[in-house]
């Protein structure tokens, strides 16, 4: 759509600007302030320069948390995206069953994060949980309090349970937008199922899949509540991801300087990924307009 050039439109944006500035810019300035200062309490600050940044950059603990975070996001994407596409392909296209499936699939997305954590924490317990008890009955030693591997399995399983539906919904919406004529053309050419998927369905899902991948990457990169409730970051620090470590540092230990420096670097990473996301998406929008 060609837009009218009019700078008065700023007045319409002003309320959003003020509100988001209040809840984003001011807090962010506080963080910047902390990151370059040291304090002994009583609101007395000393200039510390980039000391905190150096400390955080060289801290073993940070490196470990970052690797865990990257590994987690990679595993999540590798499982959720193919699974989501596969499930979306199996959903009925219209009628009451389509609606019912949509609602059932979307259900996990609407459960508060801490309740998701509670559900899985209880579900995995050996004494009272269905999954834990079943595994115990099968003779498998499953203990998220002691084994790091088990804790990882449950955290990954929980995220797959919670968020695969997002990929399903977006892929399903992409599939719905394919005109029936495309499939007819495929049948006339006697295209195999794989060819139909590869050359008709996948290209049409490209846009929504991109959004799904980026949203999943971002959200898994800042995951906090669910692992916090289920494992508390343990056993040891096996499931301590970036956000958990950050909150531990900032609010638990009140190490403001390092926590702030950490926050800023964390935020810069997010900013970078957001920029990639935004650029790719605006380009896609443009492509669609030309088609």
């Amino acid at each position, binding site marked *: 759509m060609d837009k009218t050039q009019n700078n008065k439109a700023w007045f319409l944006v002003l309320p959003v600007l003020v509100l*988001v500035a209040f809840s984003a810019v001011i807090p962010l300035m506080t963080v910047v302030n902390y990151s370059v200062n040291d304090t002994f309490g009583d609101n007395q600050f000393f200039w510390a320069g980039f000391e905190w940044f150096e400390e955080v950059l060289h801290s073993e603990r940070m490196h470990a948390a970052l690797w865990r975070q990257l590994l987690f996001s990679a595993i999540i994407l590798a499982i959720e995206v193919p699974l989501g596409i596969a499930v979306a392909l199996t959903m009925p296209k219209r009628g009451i069953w389509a609606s019912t499936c949509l609602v059932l699939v979307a259900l996990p997305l609407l459960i508060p994060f801490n309740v998701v954590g509670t559900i899985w924490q209880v579900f995995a317990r050996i004494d009272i949980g269905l999954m834990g008890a079943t595994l115990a009955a099968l003779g498998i030693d499953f203990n998220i309090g002691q084994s790091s591997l088990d804790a990882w399995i449950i955290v990954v399983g929980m995220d797959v*349970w919670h968020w695969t539906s997002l990929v399903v919904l977006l892929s399903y919406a992409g599939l719905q937008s394919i005109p029936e004529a495309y499939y007819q053309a495929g049948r006339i050419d006697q295209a195999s199922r794989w060819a139909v998927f590869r050359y008709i369905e996948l290209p049409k899902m490209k846009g929504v899949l991109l959004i799904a991948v980026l949203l999943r990457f971002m959200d898994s990169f800042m995951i906090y509540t669910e692992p916090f409730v289920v494992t508390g970051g343990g056993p040891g620090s096996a499931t301590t991801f970036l956000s958990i470590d950050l909150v531990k540092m900032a609010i638990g230990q009140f190490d403001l300087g390092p926590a702030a420096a950490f926050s800023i670097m964390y935020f810069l990473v997010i900013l970078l990924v957001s920029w990639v996301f935004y650029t790719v998406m605006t380009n896609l929008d443009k492509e669609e307009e030309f088609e």
Partner: protein
Amino acid sequence: MSALSLTAIPRTRAKDKAGLRLLTSRLVLIGYLLFLLIPIYWLVNMSFKTNAEIMSSVNLWPETPTLANYARIFGDPTWYMGYVNSLIYVVMNTVISITVALPAAYAFSRYSFLGDKHLFFWLLTNRMAPPAVFALPFFQLYSSVGLFDTHIAVALAHCLFNVPLAVWILEGFMRGVPKEIDETAYIDGYSFPRFFLKIFMPLIASGVGVAAFFCFMFSWVDLLISRTLTSVDVKTIGVAMTRTSSATGLDYGTLAAAGVLTIIPGALVIWFVRNYIAKGFALGRV
């Protein structure tokens, strides 16, 4: 005759293949739905059991179904006020977010102005910002202005990610409305506010509904920020649940019942937005 049978054989084979494919696809779907529903079922199941039964045995359905867990929640102010408090700030947040997002989304969808792309990008970064980064600064900001432990503090803090989200979703819906409608209305002598309320709003009603639903949802599911910004007066349901589970440790029945009650609002509303839910998650871009 021979030509007929030649074509007939591949056709039945193709039919068999299609049937097999349909069967496997149904099995995948049913398997996935079971995977989604069994943990939820386990929670519901537990909420109808007594604590003694939960601890003593693993049953697929309650032996002696009881409503005691729900009665405890509705009878204890620290529990049911958690829901009331959460609902208050969630509704406040939804109203604020939609009100400020409507004009902004209109501006983004209709006009190009100085810095519009940068502004839009800046809004996106706020949707993507990790709440953990903001937890401590929020605590200090709202303490210093005397809003700590109030509903409005949580509502304003959630605007950080809900306002950008609402702008994005609404912009997606608004760009689907042809610009000629605006121009015709202006020629007919409508003023901007009257045009917006009388003509434009009904056209994007579903968009407003979806945006409101998403604001409601993301405010409802958050634990980190609401926990950081509240303490005594405004105890949210998420806080009530985490505190109870750590304090007593054994009251799983009540915990399960509280969990089931938090699922209900979302489960009810989702039916109305089922056809738009993907559009909402895709930030209006499907």
